[in-house]
């Protein structure tokens, strides 16, 4: 296997030393089959142990390693150097405060996640005893796609409406709420809509669609949000006409 010398421009920021972030260059001999995360790991192991970033699984599933790679929100263990030019710029995910180097502060989204009530809500009967709910594959496949979100937050880094207004709940969390709304086992849809179709909820999305374009797991949050808007509009009429409880 051959190696290729790549130039990494990595954004650095140590709040105890620096007033503002700056770029540092590293030259890394990369193997052909590396992901950009491997190159960053190489830096950490062999060149500069002070570089701070998050990663764990190296298999596109833990969601830790989201960063901006040449301006695009990317999962670095899924972004291969074979697809990149010789110079690569690596920055922390946009739209989040930078804690240190490539590590961003995620408090805001974590709090929103709780707000969205991403768990099964039952109103009427309790679940069947000692037995699973019956659920058709048709229903499963309806929401399955939205369960694939690994919370990598790339979509938040891509969404300009979140950039402009941090009170917007944002793509991944809304997609997750929608996933529960359309799960046949759940009865919490109107409860969730009352929160998420309020001012800062789905309506702040102007369907830029960037979230879905960058999503490394093909979750398509943009679709979920639009569907939720339709649900929200229906629910509004239902409540106005006295049909639905609020």
């Amino acid at each position, binding site marked *: 296997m051959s190696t290729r010398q790549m130039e990494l421009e990595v954004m650095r920021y140590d709040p105890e030393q620096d007033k503002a972030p700056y770029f540092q260059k590293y030259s890394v001999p990369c193997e052909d089959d590396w992901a950009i995360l491997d190159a960053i790991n190489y830096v950490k192991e062999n060149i500069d142990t002070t570089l*701070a*970033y998050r990663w764990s699984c190296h298999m596109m599933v833990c969601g*830790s390693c989201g960063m901006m790679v040449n301006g695009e929100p990317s999962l670095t263990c899924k972004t291969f150097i074979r697809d990149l030019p010789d110079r690569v710029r690596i920055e922390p995910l946009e739209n989040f405060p930078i804690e240190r180097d490539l590590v961003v502060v995620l408090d805001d989204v974590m709090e929103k996640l709780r707000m969205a009530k991403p*768990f*099964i809500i039952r109103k009427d009967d309790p679940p069947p005893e000692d037995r699973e709910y019956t659920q058709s594959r048709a229903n499963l496949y309806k929401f399955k796609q939205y369960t694939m979100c690994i919370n990598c937050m790339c979509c938040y880094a891509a969404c300009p409406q979140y950039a402009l207004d941090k009170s917007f709940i944002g793509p991944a969390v809304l997609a997750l709420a929608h996933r529960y709304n359309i799960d046949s086992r759940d009865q919490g849809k109107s409860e969730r809509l009352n929160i998420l179709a309020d001012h800062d909820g789905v309506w702040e999305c102007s369907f830029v669609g960037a979230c879905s374009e960058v999503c490394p797991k093909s979750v398509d949050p943009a679709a979920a949000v639009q569907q939720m808007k339709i649900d929200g509009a229906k629910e509004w009429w239902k409540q106005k006409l006295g049909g639905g409880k609020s």
Partner: protein
Amino acid sequence: METIHADIVIVGAGGAGLRASIEIAQSNPELKVALISKVYPMRSHTCAAEGGAAGVKGADDSQEMHFNDTVSGGDWLCDQEVVEYFVSQAARELVQLEHWGCPWSREDDGSVAVRPFGGMKKKRTWYAADKSGFHILHTLFQTSLQFPTIQRFDEFFAIDLLHKNGKCRGVVAMEMRSGRFFSFQAPVVIMASGGGGQCFPFTTNGAIKTGDGMAMAYRAGVPLKDMEFVQYHPTGLPGTGILLTEGCRGEGGILVNKNGYRYLQDYGMGPETPIGEPVLKTMELGPRDRLSQAFWHEQKKGNTVETPWGDCVLLDMRHLGEKKINERLPLVRELASSYVGHDPVTDPVPVRPVIHFMMGGIDSNINGETPMPGLYAIGETACSGLHGANRLGSNSLTDLLVSGKRSAERAAAYAKEAGQREDDPFITAQAEAVVTWVRELLQQSGGDESIARIRREMKTTLEEGAGIYRDEEGTSASCQKVAELRERYKTIEVHDKSNVFNTDLQQALELRNLLDVAETVAEASLERRESRGAHQRLDYTERDDENFLKHSLAFRQADGRPRIEWLDVTITRSQPGVRDYSGSKDK
């Protein structure tokens, strides 16, 4: 340093820690739970599990059969009362998960689907395509969000346990984002910190699996049990060590050597079964230890395929067809295509055995209790005696749930009895001492040892001395090497002096834990002079029930190498027998 009081501290928010925290919050809302995790809960390595979770489902299956598979799969080193309890609770826990919204794959009639798995006589592995662990973890995490009594401390790195008079009293942790230290004081600590596969060079385990909990308990005087049993998974992607789930073979994938020959039939797992019609508990559906060992022999015979990443065999799934692969193994397809450039729909995929799971861990029992009152251990970090000498695939995820719930019940009762306590100056001083040590580690400079180098050497020596096959000479060399590395560790330099998100410091602390774990693995491997399950000795090739139907216990010594003691295995109904994977008697 700040002090936080809680009724129960849980270290680890993977499958086990989350299940336990939900149980406590649901049944004992008056108890305050502090859930500490060094990564956000959904980043925990449970998310990487692909294949599924075992629990009796079909009408033709029984708990008895699940019990027998587990015990023989574990080469009779299982504590049988633990296995009995486990199989009795398995299905119930998986149903509970379904009620919480887990997107299990479904049969035509809308019931949950099950798939075959290695070493299991019946189809009983519940799965969610090939992202079972991921969905389990996210379901648990999301479910946990509804309980206000679970207070989370995300990205807090637990460093050491606090204890007094032999009783556990809490844990010291560092908040990564600020570098501040906290002493969590509580009568109960539940250790759910996962495995330590990172002490080996080539592993399916994520970077966070550094055996921290095991090492913390070990340093606090609690023995580590059965550490010599480390599972190799037969089908890892070369280079990265990424796992291709056993589900690949469960669905009908076959393993061939460079001649296209299904070599497993030469290693007691034949006769050959027709391609595309996998037969349970034979050939490709034999247990992991046997399959990995067969690879080793093929490699010695020169029958493996040479690849840029070393010797491999081929996992052929082409006959499954694109539709089935997309439906049941989409992640496998994505991983194999992206990381080694082989699409399983069109090409056989090169694979090789890879370190996957630690059967051993903190000595605990059916209730998660350890020898130290107030300290509980669950999940992969614990060794309750469930997995014996070789874990069957898909028993571990279920164990997270079963042991998580059970230990939570016990721990809650214990915590209520112990009651809330005042600040204890003794405990505070103990915590201060830990912090002082860490601060000194951070300040010390001028040493020429690098964290990366020691880590690399540790990994190499452990693979050499405690790999698929072991012998006296190689293993004792490893023991010495690890001891030497522990000495050299004392002069490492942490170059990053910042307080904020200091991953250099974190890696230094993790390396300390890895070295402790590595040492117990090597020493226990040396002392077990027999071959059993995942522990295979070239110089003691037979199982020796007379002398070694026992758990090993590694105790830390104040200085020098650990002391190994032995503990009898609990046998209730199944006497040691022959592990038969020829498929003959089941027909």
